[in-house]
Each structure stands twice: as structure tokens, then as C-alpha cells.
């Protein structure tokens, strides 16, 4: 995070707390709706109109457009709801991990193997 925030004490981690839950309410509500196929179809048909329906902020809409996972978290997205947006884009947890860490997919998978083996 660019600015030191006492409610976010772990660098590189976006604790989903009350502040974030309030900030990201509309964004998360939109992503929660993606549990339904009809909602996913409606979003795909006209993303901007769908974002407007849930009152997303300009920053949130930009992050949706840019598939900017970190941006979505910074704007109050919960990873569990952001994952539903990622699913709509056919991205899995390793894809999202690669995007967030700035690694290629293979590099991110190698990182998981390294961490999982206890080498790190």
C-alpha cells in the first residue's frame, strides 16, 4: 500500500476489515451476483451498465476494466468476491496470483512449489 494504514499492518496483504467492507460494498455485491449465470451473462453483455447498477466508483470501474486485481482489493474488494469476477474471466487462483505478484504464471507456480517444499 502506498500510504501507511494502521488497519493494514501486513505489507502486501489487504485485510478485509470494516473499512474495506464499507468501501467495497457495491463492488463485492456485484461480484456476489456472479454466483448466478444470468448475472454473468448480463455483465458480459454490457460491463459498464452492470457496474453502474451496483454503484461502483470510478476507480472500481477502472480496476474492473483493467482486470487489476490489486486495484480491486485496494478499492475494497474481498478476495472471495474478486475470485468470482476472476472466474467469470476464466482465471483461476494461480492466474490471479501471477497477476498480483507481477510474475508469469509459470514463475508463480514455481514459487508455490518452492514455498510448499519449505525451501523458502
Amino acid at each position, binding site marked *: 500500500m502506498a500510504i501507511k494504514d494502521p488497519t493494514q499492518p501486513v505489507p*502486501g496483504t489487504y485485510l478485509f476489515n470494516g473499512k474495506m*467492507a464499507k468501501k467495497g460494498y457495491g463492488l463485492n455485491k456485484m461480484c456476489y451476483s456472479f454466483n448466478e449465470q444470468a448475472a454473468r451473462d448480463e455483465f458480459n453483455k454490457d460491463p459498464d451498465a452492470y457496474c453502474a447498477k451496483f454503484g461502483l466508483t470510478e476507480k472500481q470501474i477502472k480496476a474492473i476494466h483493467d482486470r487489476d486485481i490489486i486495484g480491486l482489493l485496494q478499492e475494497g474488494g474481498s478476495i472471495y468476491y474478486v475470485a468470482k469476477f476472476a472466474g467469470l474471466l476464466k482465471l483461476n487462483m494461480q492466474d490471479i496470483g501471477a497477476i498480483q505478484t507481477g510474475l508469469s504464471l509459470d514463475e508463480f507456480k514455481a514459487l508455490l512449489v518452492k514455498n510448499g517444499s519449505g525451501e523458502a
Partner: protein
Amino acid sequence: MANIIGAVTTSHIPAIANAMANKQEDTPYWKPFFDGYPPVRKWLNEKQPDVIVLFYNDHGLEFFIDKKPTFAIGVADEYHNSDEGWGIATIPPVTGESELSWHIANSLVEDGFDMTICQEMKVDHGLTVPLSLMWPGNNYGHVKVIPVCINCEQHPMPQPWRCFELGKAIGKAIESYDEDISVAIFGTGGLSHQLDGERAGIINREFDLECMDKLVSDPEALTKYSNLELVEIGGAQTVELNMWIAMRGALRGKVTELHRNYHAPISNTGSGVLLLEHEMPSK
């Protein structure tokens, strides 16, 4: 009197459901993971528990953040899974155990655990993946399941010590139930992982193995951690350890480890399995 006959811990990663659906159990990636399950299945098959009390967390299927219970318990005769948005197949209905569920709910609230009590509750991969893992082919319809949902998604979350106390209170409730049935406790989720942020990809193998040891012999040590410490040590979603700690709270006396497996990574996660028995109260 109802008896707790033992406990199982398992990961509940959605990718496991896809691996089973795509018959990838014997591929090099998945084999070390799935090899951990036959001993647990064998135990369940031999012991035939009537009821499973299953600790899990809901990742945004039943509960949105409009209303987010800290602890919730299902009291229904049946539970349904449904589309979670990213393509794991839904599974057949899960059988509930309404009467014992209400008994537990009454006892918990009496003991100071102010549960959210649910007569309708969609259950997500947190609950369904463990059932599919234990009863391949989704042949779990004969087992009655009582879902106990712990908030692991939105801070403030219940702390490890509190989840341990919840488990204890559930153990006490089960043992005060006046029907001759057998109950197994499932703790699901974990272990170390972080899905979000620049720090995504953390797995702490050493910590996971230590948690599995302590869960057997010294669970109180785990209750000393705060959720924030778990986040720092193992990654943001390591708080799912709370479901394992809750499970352990329901066991009593000397706990025996019958089986364990640990493999990492599966998806982004350290995946552990434990099969435990404890000292059964004398009748």
C-alpha cells in the same frame, strides 16, 4: 447418549472438486494429495458415524457481507449446494439432522455462544469438497451432516481461542444428547495460504506441520495465536486453521493420531489430513 467417535481434518480447496470431476487423482500433481485419503475413507466406512458435525467457512455462497454471522449452525433436514460462480460442479443435496442440530444450538446459546441459526443454508465448497473427498462418487447421502460455519472472510473474525471454546461447547452438547448415535467431527480448510495481494503465494510448510503436531498433543498452544499472527506467519487465509482448532475442542482426554498426510502446494495451499480418535466417555 451420543458419542463422538473421532475426528477428521481436511483441506477444502475448490480445485480438488475439479480434479475429481476430471478424474485426475492419479496424475503426478494430484496423487500425493489423494493418497492421503484411503485410510480416512476406510475408517469412516468401518465406523459408520451416524452424524458428521462439520466446521467450515462460507466463501460467499450463503452469506454475503450484508449480514455476516460470526458463528452459524444449520438446523435443517437437507442442505443444497449451488453455483459459486467459477465452474465447480454442484453436488447432490446433503442430508441434515435437525433434532440434534437444535439440541446443539440450544445448548450453545445457553453456554454463551450466540449462534445464527439457519433453517435454510446453501453450503459451498467448504462443506461439499470434504464430503466428496470422503465418499467418492458423492455417496454421502446416508450420513447426516450438521454444518457449523465460522467467519474466516471478514475481520473481525473469532479468535482461535474462541473457536476452541466453541468446539468444546459443541462436544459437551453432543455428549448430553440422549440418543444412542455416533458422531464424527470434521475440521476443514487451511492450512497456510494467501490468495490476495502482492504477498499471494505464501505457504509455510514448517508451520503447517507444527500445527498438525500441536493439534494432536497441545491444542492450547494454537489457541495462543491471534488471527493477525496467523496471517503474518502463514498468509491471509491461514485463519482457516480455526476450523481445525474448533474440531479439536470437541475432543477430550488423550487424543490419538491414526493417520496423517501433508502435501504442498495444492492450488495455492498447504493441504493436511488428520484422522484422530480420543478417549470415549464410559457409559
